[in-house]
């Protein structure tokens, strides 16, 4: 799973039927201290009602996504599965 922050939205009209009516959010990977990693991002379907600016947990693996969607043929790899309230890393060194 990836710790990330919702940075923005992406809207498509013409797209695969499975994605119709499902919210897509653009998530940037963050380090445990909350700063943007600056290189990694992912477009994920929102399962939890997340909004821009929130810290979230992204499941970035297809079989996990299909379990959560309860559809063995879902053509989806990345899902926002949690909204993170708090991250606690007692030793800030060497966490990245």
């Amino acid at each position, binding site marked *: 799973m990836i710790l990330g922050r919702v940075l923005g939205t992406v*809207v498509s009209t013409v*797209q695969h039927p499975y994605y119709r009516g499902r919210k*897509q959010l653009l998530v*940037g990977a963050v380090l445990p201290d909350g700063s*943007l990693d600056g290189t*990694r991002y992912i*477009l994920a379907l929102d399962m939890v009602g997340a909004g821009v*600016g929130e810290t979230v947990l992204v499941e970035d693996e297809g079989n996990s996504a299909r379990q959560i969607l309860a559809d063995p043929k879902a053509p989806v*790899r990345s899902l926002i599965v949690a909204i993170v309230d708090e991250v606690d890393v007692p030793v800030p060194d060497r966490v990245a």
Partner: protein
Amino acid sequence: MRLGRVIGTLVATVKPDAMKGLKLLIVRPLTANLADDGEPFVATDASAQASSGDLVTWEAAREAALLHDPWFIPVDHAVVGIVDQHALENPEGTP
């Protein structure tokens, strides 16, 4: 999924039977800020309508094949949809 730009199309007559009828696109991967991010690749079109110049979303690996029906086909990248609107809260500093 990630963002990409369709920079071209290609046609192949000789290809696996399971790929017959699939449109092939050349896609350049992009960063969240729509800057170039790596070398282009060839993807099938699961959105059915993408063409050169379109900003698109794409998926790789098994999920690319699952975008098609039948899904058990030898495809490793596919375009999911065409992006109408792309909004970042704070474009500076985003990946």
